C-alpha cells in the first residue's frame, strides 16, 4: 500500500537531444559529445545530496526524462538505479520508467536498459504518419516508430506511447484511423496530448496556430470515446491506461507526494527528514518534519555541471511552500485526475481543509453547473469540468474580481 507521507519518487533529467523539436518548451539542448562519466558522477553526487535529506523513505518510482534519456549510456542508468536503491528502501514493485525516442540507434539499447533495471518504457511516438512527424520536427519516421513499438513491447512488460494530436488541418476522421492503428500495437498506457503552442518555442515564433476551440473539443471527445471503448480509461486529462497500469510516478505528482528532482532544470518537492526525525535542512538550518520545500536545479547544463563539481548539487532555487501554496498545488493537480482530489490527504499534507481555501459559494456554483462533484472525502472534476479546468481553477482559487 502507498503511504503518501513516507513514499518518495525520483526524477532524473537528461538534458540532451539530437535536435530540438519546434513544439518543445522543455529543458533540452543539442550537444554532439557528452562526457558520460562526468555526467554520471555529477548526477550521482546530486542524488546523494538529496537522499541525505530524505533518508529512510520508501522509493516507489524512478523516472528518466529529458531531453532524450534514451541517449544515456545504459551503464549510467544502471549506476544511478543502484545508488538510488542504496540511498532509500526500494519498494518491491519499484516502477522505473525511461523516456525513449523511436530511432533505430536507440532501439538497439532497449534491452540494455531493461538489464540496467528499467521496467517501463515510454516512447515518444507522436504520430504514425510521416507528414505530421516531419511537421513536428521529429528525427524518426512512421516506419521507425512502428519498429520501435514492436521492439519495446518484446523487451518490456510495461510500455507507454506518447502521441500529439489536434495538429493543424487534422480531421477527426483521420485521427480516428491513426489512433486505431496505435491501439492495435499498444502496450498498457497511452499519453495523448493536444498540440499547444507554448511561448519560447519555434512554433510560437512562426505563428503556428493550434486547433480552434470547437475542433479541439471534437478531437478530445473522439479520443476519450475511442480509448475508453478499447479499455484505456482516462485517469488524467491526457493519460489513459488499462486498469492497474497507471504511471505511479506521475500519480505522485498529481496526488501531491514527495519527489526528488535531479539534473539540470529539474524540479522537486520534498519534505526533508524522515519519520518525524529532525534533520539538518538545506543551508544548515533545522527543518521541521512538516516543512515542504520546492527545489529547482539550475537550468544550463554546463553551469549545473560546474556547480555540482563545487558544491555537490546544482540547486538554483529552494524555498519553503506555505500550507496554502501546497494546498493550491494539490487542488490544481488533483482535479486533473479522474479519481479527483482526496480531501483527507489535502488536510493531512497541508493542514488546510478545502473550505479554508475555496469559498463554499464557488464550489456550490461549480457543482450546480455540472463541472465538479463533491462526494464524501473527494472533490472530482466531471468530464465537462476537466475540459475547462483552467477556468475552473481560476474561479476556485482566485479571489473575487475587482477585489
Amino acid at each position: 500500500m502507498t503511504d503518501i507521507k513516507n513514499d518518495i519518487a525520483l526524477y532524473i533529467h537528461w538534458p540532451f537531444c539530437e535536435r530540438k523539436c519546434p513544439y518543445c518548451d522543455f529543458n533540452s539542448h543539442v550537444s554532439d559529445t557528452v562526457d558520460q562519466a562526468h555526467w554520471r558522477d555529477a548526477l550521482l553526487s546530486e542524488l546523494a545530496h538529496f537522499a541525505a535529506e530524505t533518508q529512510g523513505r520508501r522509493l516507489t518510482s524512478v523516472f528518466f526524462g529529458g531531453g532524450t534519456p534514451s541517449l544515456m549510456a545504459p551503464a549510467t542508468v544502471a549506476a544511478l538505479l543502484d545508488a538510488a536503491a542504496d540511498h532509500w528502501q526500494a519498494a518491491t514493485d519499484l516502477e522505473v520508467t525511461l523516456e525513449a525516442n523511436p530511432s533505430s540507434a536507440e532501439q538497439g539499447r532497449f534491452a540494455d536498459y531493461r538489464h540496467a533495471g528499467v521496467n517501463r518504457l515510454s516512447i515518444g511516438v507522436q504520430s504514425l504518419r510521416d507528414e505530421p512527424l516531419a511537421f513536428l520536427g521529429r528525427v524518426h519516421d512512421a516506419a521507425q516508430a512502428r519498429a520501435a513499438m514492436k521492439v519495446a513491447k518484446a523487451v518490456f512488460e510495461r510500455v507507454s506511447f506518447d502521441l500529439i494530436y489536434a495538429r493543424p488541418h487534422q480531421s477527426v476522421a483521420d485521427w480516428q484511423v491513426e489512433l486505431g492503428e496505435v491501439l492495435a500495437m499498444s502496450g498498457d498506457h497511452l499519453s495523448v496530448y493536444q498540440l499547444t503552442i507554448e511561448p519560447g518555442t519555434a512554433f510560437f515564433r512562426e505563428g503556428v496556430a493550434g486547433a480552434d476551440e470547437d475542433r479541439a473539443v471534437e478531437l478530445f471527445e473522439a479520443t476519450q470515446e475511442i480509448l475508453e471503448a478499447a479499455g484505456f480509461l482516462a485517469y488524467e486529462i491526457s493519460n489513459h491506461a488499462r486498469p492497474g497500469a497507471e504511471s505511479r510516478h506521475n500519480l505522485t505528482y498529481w496526488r501531491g507526494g514527495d519527489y526528488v528532482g535531479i539534473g539540470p532544470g529539474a524540479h522537486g518537492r520534498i519534505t526533508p527528514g524522515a519519520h518525524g526525525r529532525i534533520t539538518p535542512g538545506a543551508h544548515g538550518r533545522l527543518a521541521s518534519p512538516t516543512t515542504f520545500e520546492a527545489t529547482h536545479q539550475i537550468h544550463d547544463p554546463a553551469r549545473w555541471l560546474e556547480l555540482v563539481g563545487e558544491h555537490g548539487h546544482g540547486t538554483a532555487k529552494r524555498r519553503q511552500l506555505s500550507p496554502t501554496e501546497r494546498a493550491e498545488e494539490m487542488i490544481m493537480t488533483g482535479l486533473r485526475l479522474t479519481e479527483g482530489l482526496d480531501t483527507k490527504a489535502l488536510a493531512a499534507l497541508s493542514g488546510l481543509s478545502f473550505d479554508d481555501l475555496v469559498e463554499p459559494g464557488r464550489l456550490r456554483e461549480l457543482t450546480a453547473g455540472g463541472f465538479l462533484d463533491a462526494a464524501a472525502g473527494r472533490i472530482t472534476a466531471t468530464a465537462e469540468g476537466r475540459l475547462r479546468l483552467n477556468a475552473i481553477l481560476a474561479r476556485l482559487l482566485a479571489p473575487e474580481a475587482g477585489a
Partner: protein
Amino acid sequence: MTTDLSHIRNFAIIAHIDHGKSTLADRMIQICGGLTEREMKEQVLDSMDIERERGITIKAQTVRLEYKASDGETYILNLMDTPGHVDFTYEVSRSLAACEGSLLVVDATQGVEAQTLANVYLAVDASHEIIPVLNKIDLPAAEPERIKEQIEEVVGIDTDGALNISAKTGDGVAAVLDSLIERLPPPQGDVKAELKALLVDSWYDPYLGVMILVRVQDGVIKKGMKVRMMATGAAHQVERVGVFRPKTEMVDQLGPGEVGFITAAIKTVADTSVGDTITDDKKPATEPLAGFLPSVPVVFCGLFPVDTGQYEDLRDSLEKLHLNDASFHFEAESSAALGLGFRCGFLGLLHLEIVQERLEREFDLDLITTAPSVVYRIHMSDGSMRELHNPVDMPDPTAIDFIEEPWIKATVMVPDQYLGSVLQLCEERRGEQIELTYVGNRAMAVYRLPLNEVVFDFYDRLKSVSRGYASFDYELLDYAAGDLVKVTLLVNAEVVDALSFMVHESHAESRGRAICEKLKDLIPRQLFKIAVQAAIGGKVIARTTVNAMRKDVTAKCYGGDITRKKKLLEKQKKGKKKMRQFGNVEIPQSAFLAALKTGE
C-alpha cells in the same frame, strides 16, 4: 512709463487649423527680434506638447512686439493668438475683446473653412477692422484670386486690401506688420481716469503662481498698488507687472491700450473670474467694462482609472490640471462597473480629448472614458426642472413630464462631390436644414442638429463620408423637447451602469443592438453563457448571448509544469484586478473600454 496710444496696435489672428496662424506669428516675432535665432522653435506660441503635436492652439497666447515701421517710428504691437477650434470659442471672443482689429488668415490652396467663418463673425461682432491675408502663396496649388472671391462671397468682406504672403518663407510678412499700423485704429483710453483693466485670462504658472492677462482700458496698473476685482469684490496687492515678448519681462506699469500680465498672490485660477474688470481699490471706477458670459461645460463623461488603485492620483491630477484650466468641471462618481472615478464636464469633445490626453501623458494615468453625454433638462410632473449630466442619474420616467435636449446650429463646408453623403448624415442625425449654398465647387450646409447626435460619433462619420474634406463648426442654439429615453445595458440581468446612455427613441433599438453585438465579441467566453441585453426601463429592446467556453485546459502538467501552472494562476489572480464581477461572470475592463469607443 506708458506708451503713447497712437503707437499701440492690438490685433488677433483668425484662421482655420493648419492655415498657418502660428507660423505667421512666429515669423512676426522673428522680424521684431523678440527671440534670438537659437530660441526660435517652430510655433513658439503653442507651448504645450499637445498643441505642437496636433498643430492646434488651445490656450490664448499673447506677445508684445516692437516694430520699426516704414514711417521710421517704433510701434508696440500686441498679438493675441487665438485657438482655432469650436470648443474654445469663448477664448477667442475674450481675446478679440482685447483688440481693435484682426488678421484673417486663409490658406490660399484651401479656401474658407467652417471655423474661419465662425471666428470672423465674432470679430465683426467685436467691431474689428479685418485685414484678409492669403497665406501659402509659395505653393503651386495656391489660387489667391479665386480664394479672395470666395472670401467676398462667403464671408462678405472686402478683399481689395488683402495681402498675399508666405508665412513659411517670410515673404510679405513685413507688409502685414505695416498694414496693421496703417489700417488698425489705435486703442482709445484715458491715462488719467480711474483704472479699468479687462481680466482676459488667467492660468497657473509653477514659478510665478496665478498669472492674470489684462488689457488696460483707462488708468494705469502698477506694481505695489492694491487692485479690486469689480465682480467678485476681492482686493489684492499687485506683486508683479510684466509683458510677454514672448518671454516674460517685468515692467513697472501698464497704461491704456497695453496688454500684459500681473501676479498678486492669488492662490488658484478659480479665484479669478475671466471677463471681470480690475480697478484701483482706493479710487475705484464706477462702471465695469462689458464682460463675457462664463464658459459652461456642454459635454460630460466619466473618467475612471484603469487601475482602481490610481483613484487618488487621478484626483490630484485633476486638481492640478484645474489650476490651469478652470473651464472643465469634475466631481467624484462611483460606478459598479468601473469603480471610483469622476464625472467631468467639458467645453466640447476636443476639450474632453485634450484633458484626457494631458492626464494620461503629463500625469502618467491610464484612463477609461465613458460615452460623452450632453446636459438634458428634465421637467418633472411636479413642475420642477433638473439638469441631467449623467444618464445614471435619470429619474423614474413615470415622474417625468418631458425632457429637453440642447440643439446646435451646425455649419458644414464640403466639396460638392461629398455633399450628398453629408446631407444624408445630417438627416440621419435628426437634422433640420436651415440653409444650403454653393460657392464654386464647395457647398455650405447649415443645419439645426441635436447636440447629443453630434457627441455620439458625428465627427468621425463626417470625416469618413467626406474623406476628411469637410470642415465643421457649431454654436449652441436652444433647448427643445424630444422623445428621449435612457437605454441600459445588462449583463446576466445586472445593469452595467457605465454603459447606459440617453438616446432619441427612434435610434434606441439600433444603438442598443450595436452595443450588444459589440459586447458579445468583447466579452471572453466563460464557464457559463452570458446574456447581454439592452433595455428601456423593464423592456428589453436587443439581446445577444456570449456562449459558454468549451475547452480550456493545459495538456501537460508534470513536475516542472506545476510551478509554471502556478505562475499562470498568479497571473490570473492579478488579472482579476482589471476584471469586474457581474453575478458569476467576470468581465475584463478592457471590454467596457472597447465598448465605450463609439463608432466602428
